[in-house]
C-alpha cells in the first residue's frame, strides 16, 4: 500500500493549536534581538533620567522640569511616572509603531507570510495572534519603563509616602497602587496605536513604511491636539486622553475620565482591527 493512500479523510486539529501558535509568536517577537534592543532602549530612559536628577539634586536645577520630573528627587516612585511622561510623546509610540507596523508586513517582506498561510494558518487566526503579540510587546515596553523606573527611583532617591497632585499625602502602599493604575492606563492607551499599526501593516510589504506611518499617525494626532481650531475633534484623537493617566494621582480619580479615555482607545481598536481584518483576509499575498 502506498504512503499517500494511507491518509484518508480530513486532517484533524490537535487540541491546544491556538496556544502553540501564540507561544510561537510570542517567542519569536519577544526573543527577537531588535525588539529586545528597543525594550532596553526604553528601560534606559528611567536610568538616565534618574542619574541626571541624582547628579543635579543639589544644584539650582533641582525641582525643575515638567510633569513629575521635579518631584522625583523627593520620592523615587515618581521616577516611574516621570519616565512614562517623558517617553509618552515620542519614544513609546516609536517603539510600538516599529513592533506593530512590522507584525504582518515584516513576514510579508521576508516571504515567511506565504509559508505560514500554506501551512495552513487561517488568516483571521494569524491576525489575532499577530495583534496579541504586538499588544504583549506594547505592554512589555510600558512595563520595562515602569519596573526599571521603580528600581532606579528606589535606589537613587528611596521610596516615600506619595504626595498627590492635590497636595494630599497617601501611604506608600496606596500610592504604589495608584502608580500601578497609571502604568496600566498608559499600557491600555497604547492599544489604539497597536491596532492602527496592525492595519498599516496589512497594507504593505514594506515594514518600514508601516512603522513610519504608525509613528507619524501618533505624532500628527499629537499636533492636531494642540490646534485650538480643531477642539471639536480633540476628544476623538488617538493621543488626546493619553495624559489622563494623571487622574490616578488626583485625590479622587474620576472613573468617568478614565473610562472615557479607554473608551476612545476601544473605539480606535474596534475600527482599525476591523479594517485590518477586512484587508488581511481579502488581500492577495504576492510576496
Amino acid at each position, binding site marked *: 500500500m502506498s504512503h499517500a493512500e494511507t491518509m484518508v479523510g480530513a486532517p*484533524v*486539529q490537535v487540541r491546544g493549536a491556538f496556544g502553540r501558535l501564540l507561544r510561537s509568536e510570542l517567542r519569536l517577537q519577544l526573543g527577537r534581538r531588535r525588539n529586545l534592543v528597543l525594550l532596553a532602549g526604553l528601560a534606559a530612559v528611567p536610568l538616565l533620567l534618574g542619574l541626571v536628577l541624582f547628579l543635579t539634586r543639589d544644584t539650582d536645577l533641582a525641582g525643575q522640569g515638567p510633569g513629575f520630573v521635579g518631584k522625583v528627587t523627593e520620592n523615587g516612585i515618581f521616577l516611574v511616572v516621570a519616565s512614562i511622561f517623558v517617553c509618552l510623546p515620542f519614544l513609546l509610540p516609536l517603539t510600538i509603531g516599529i513592533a506593530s507596523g512590522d507584525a504582518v508586513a515584516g513576514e510579508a517582506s521576508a516571504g515567511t507570510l506565504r509559508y505560514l498561510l500554506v501551512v495552513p494558518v487561517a488568516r483571521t487566526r494569524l491576525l489575532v495572534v499577530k495583534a496579541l503579540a504586538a499588544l504583549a510587546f506594547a505592554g512589555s515596553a510600558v512595563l520595562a519603563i515602569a519596573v526599571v523606573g521603580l528600581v532606579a527611583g528606589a535606589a537613587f532617591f528611596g521610596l516615600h509616602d506619595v*504626595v498627590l497632585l*492635590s*497636595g494630599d499625602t497617601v501611604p506608600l502602599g496606596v500610592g504604589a497602587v495608584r502608580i500601578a493604575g497609571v502604568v496600566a492606563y498608559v499600557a491600555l492607551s497604547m492599544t489604539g496605536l497597536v491596532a492602527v499599526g496592525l492595519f498599516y501593516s496589512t497594507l504593505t510589504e514594506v515594514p518600514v513604511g508601516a512603522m513610519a506611518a504608525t509613528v507619524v499617525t501618533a505624532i500628527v494626532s499629537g499636533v492636531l491636539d494642540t490646534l485650538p481650531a480643531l477642539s471639536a475633534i480633540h476628544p476623538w484623537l488617538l493621543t488626546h486622553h493619553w495624559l489622563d493617566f494623571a487622574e490616578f494621582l488626583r485625590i479622587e480619580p*474620576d472613573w468617568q475620565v478614565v473610562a472615557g479615555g479607554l473608551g476612545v482607545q476601544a473605539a480606535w481598536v474596534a475600527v482599525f482591527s*476591523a479594517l485590518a481584518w477586512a484587508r488581511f*483576509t481579502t488581500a492577495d499575498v504576492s510576496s
Partner: protein
Amino acid sequence: MTETSPLPPSPRRTLSARARWAFPAVVAVGVGAAFAAPPLLASADSSGLPPVTPEELVAAVAAAQPQALSGTVVYTARLGLPSLPFGPETADPVNLLDGSSTLRVWTDGGERSRVSLLGDMSEFSVVHDGPEVWTYASSDDAVVHYTVSDADRARYESLKDDAAAGQVPGGADLPTPTEAAQQVLDQAEQLSHVSLDAESTVAGRGAYQLVVTPKTPGTLVARVVVAIDAQTQTPLRVQVWSTQDAQTPALEVGFTDVTFATPSDSVLAFSAPAGATTTEKVVTLPTDEQIAADHAAGADGELPEGVTVSGTGWATVVQATGVDVPGLVAGDPSALAAVPSGHPTIGSESAQGLLDQFGPQDGAGPASKFQGLDPAALYDSLTTKVPEGHLISSALLSVLITDDGRVLAGAVPAATLQAMA
C-alpha cells in the same frame, strides 16, 4: 492532551471581499452610535418639570439649603482677549482668562469645601475648612495657608452662621456655578428683568433656566442665563452672554457631572505635604462696625483711597488713580504696593466676581508666569494703543490704562471708558 476534533467535513463558503469590507463600516457606525447615544438619551427627559414663575424660582434658590455635592465643572471663557504666550497645560488660575478649564468641586454644603483646577499634569486646589483656607499649586509644590488670628477665631465662630460665613477668609476663590449664580441673583431684582427660558438638561439633571437681563443698555452684558436644578434648587450652570456675540456665551461655568452626596472626609481635609513651601497668611475679620457700614452702603462698601466709582449696577465703572503703570510693567514690587487695595470693589457683584476670579493671588500666580518674558513687550502685545492710553478690550470687560496713571475698568464698551478718561 491527545484529544482531537475533526474539521468540518464541508467547508463553509467564505465571505466575499465586499462583505468583508462591509464589516469595518458596520463597526465604525456602531462605534459612532455608541458614543452619540448617551448624550441623546440624557437630553431626552428634560421636559415635564412642574411649572414655576421666575419670582418663585429666585425665592426658592435663595431659600434652598446649601447642598452637599461633588462634581466636575467646566469653565469656558471666550472673552476675545489676545492669546497669552504660555500654554494651558499647567493648572494656574491665570488660565481662566481664556479658553476652557476643568474644575472638581466637593462641598459638604457648609463650611468645608475643596475646588481643584485641573491641568494636564497638575492641579491648583483651594480647600476651605472652617476658618482655614489652603491653596496648593502642584506645579511649584507651594502651599498658602490662610487663617484667622487667635483673637478673631471666636468671632469667626459667632459669624459662621451668617450668610457670608463661607467666604470669610476669601482671597483665593475659583469659579463655581453656585458662587457665580449667587452673585447674579443677589442683584437680579433691583437692576434686571428676570424671566424663564425653556427647561434644559445640565449634567444629566432636569433644570429650569432663569434669564437675567440688565435693565441698562450701557453694559457689555446682554444677559445671564442660570440653569437651576429642579430638585435641589442648586445652580448648575451660569452663562454670561455678551452684547458682542449672540452665538456663544462669553463666559460659561457649569457642571458636567454632579452627585448630591456628602464627600468623604479625606477630600475635605488638607494638610501641607512634606517638602512643600508653605506661606502662612493671617486674615483679619471685618469688625461689626465695618459689616454694619457695608450693609448701610449696600454692596459698594468703603472705597479705598484713590478709587472712585461712577455709574450703577451693570454699567458701573471703577477708576483708580496714581497707578505706577511703567513700574508695574517693569516688575517693580514697590509699584505693586502703590495699587490701592488688594481687591478693587465694583458696584456690580457679577463684575466683582469676575475680577476676583481673574485677579492675581497676592501677586503670586501670573507674575511668576511672566518670568523670562519681556514684560514691556507683553504689555504692548496684550493692550491696544488708543489716544487716551492703553486699552484692554474683551467681550465682557474693558480696561483703560491712561498714560497719566489712571486705570478705568467696567463691564461697559471701551468707548464709554475713553469718553470718561
